[in-house]
């Protein structure tokens, strides 16, 4: 079984001028954590991951683990402020511009190995061909389905 046999060809994507706020709304509507960012020629520019947006909105002392537990704070005004400042910016500011990518003829095993290399919060593997043109996506669920048989 190859990547092209399990990938989703009609993937939801966002264009580079899309703002982080718009992307967050799309993620909420579609219940997706990751969105590929592609230009008008379907060239893959990066992957936008919800947790990376969240990390940017968190103060570093929380996101970097200096203060791992903030249960004592009912709410953090600074988080909402930082998120508010982040929302009007284009997604290219937060996306990962160099995500690991599969090729259509890569094996499922190779795809699983690639997705294991991504941060633990990213569950999406773009499949590209030629000059980085997005032809589909493979989610962790597609790999689980394949392994489960």
């Amino acid at each position, binding site marked *: 079984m190859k990547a092209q046999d399990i990938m989703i060809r009609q993937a939801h994507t966002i264009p580079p001028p899309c703002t982080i706020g718009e992307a967050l709304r799309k993620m909420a509507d579609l219940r997706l954590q990751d969105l590929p960012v592609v230009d008008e020629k379907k060239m893959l520019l990066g992957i936008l991951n919800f947790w990376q947006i969240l990390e940017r909105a968190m*103060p*570093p*002392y*929380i996101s*970097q683990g*200096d*203060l791992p*537990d*903030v*249960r*004592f*704070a*009912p709410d*953090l*005004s*600074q988080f909402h402020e930082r998120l508010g400042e982040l929302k009007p910016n284009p997604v290219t500011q937060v996306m990962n511009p160099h995500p690991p990518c599969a090729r259509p003829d890569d094996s499922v095993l190779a795809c699983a190995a690639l997705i294991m290399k991504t941060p633990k919060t990213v569950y999406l593997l773009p499949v590209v061909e030629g000059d980085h043109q997005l032809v589909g996506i493979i989610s962790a669920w597609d790999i689980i389905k394949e392994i489960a048989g």
Partner: protein
Amino acid sequence: MHEASIQTIFGFSPLWVATSILILTYAVIIAERFNRAIVALLGAAAVIGTGVLTQNQAIQGIDFNTIGLLTGMMILVGITKECGIFQFLAIKAAKAAKGSPWGILVMLSMVTAVLSAFLDNVTTVLLVAPVTLLIADELKINPYPLLFAEINASNTGGTATLIGDPPNIMIGSATSLTFNDFVIHLAPVAIVAFSATLIPLWFMYGKTMFASPEARARIMAFKEYEAIRDVGLLKHCLLVFSLVILGFILAHSIGMEPATIALGGAALLLLLVTFSLDNEQAGHKVHALFGQVEWITIFFFCGLFIIVTGVEHTGLLQSIADWTLSLTAGNFMVTTLAILWVSAILSAIVDNIPFVATMIPMIKSMLPVFQQAGTPLEQAETLWWALSLGACLGGNGTLVGASANLIVAGIAERNGVPFRFLPFLKVAFPLMILQILISTVYIWMRYL
């Protein structure tokens, strides 16, 4: 003074070889190019390899009371920090100040000082500084003054007890001075030095610190009890810490050394936290908790003790002590104050641990001279208090003066709060001088 075991090494006297190893090791440690534990161990290996000391002599030179006390306290703190008590105390302190920025600065400094008196300074600031950043963010104030005050409080609080700062641990271990002696002789001046520092901080920062009522309300909405992550663990930690502190207080009467008490306490707490686990789980847990010990510090100490023993063995330190006494004309007051000021200035610039390790045998050889000259033993012991005050408070003088300073600076920089050498020096050095002046007056009035 000991006789050197061999006459010459490669044509050089052991004194020159040991001195060269000491200077070279300290120079490389100061350069901070290589890990200090590696450098100290290589220096120690050179001391043995060149025949200055035999391996047995070198091993005897390691002060296992210091090593045991440090290791025991590191294990105790490593376990205790997991229960969230430090965050609880920091938030409680901020709420006690009713969200007032200056009140929070004072309260957080007090918490840091008290914790640093009983725990190692690095752990204390590592746990208090992130909460401070969050509080400052919520108040929308510059966190720099709060963090600056905490650095100062950490080094000053550490001065107050035998277990507060490594120089005190080393001094306590090398002498017959008890935990209570340290509290009686150093805590009063540490409290005065801490309080006095707050006055210039008020004029520099406090006067202009302001937070809106809404921001203060956000701090008051914090639920400090939610910071306690494990109530069962907290109870165990409080029980064992109380026993350990009681042990330190009674150490002299029950004839136990601080290392035995700290390691005994660590073993008891390890037993309590692994009691309900099966053998395999307990093994993993103990392995992880032993991993909390800062082995770099422990091996650094081992290496230093051997290097300093090598130099002591050749008689160099005795010669320097004699030379110092000739410089001060054997005047006890001048010698004491010289030790205080030189220790403070040098500790502000270089690591105070190697400095204190070198000073201890020197002061030990000075004591009999003063006693023979008629100085009572209790008064002669003032030399130790001078060394402790200088070495501990000196760490406040520069950004590189103490490990806690660098830790706070690192956390602050990661969070976009610049902590640079010169701006820090401009405020910290005069404050350190103020604290040493206070110490001078204290020593002069109480002992001289």
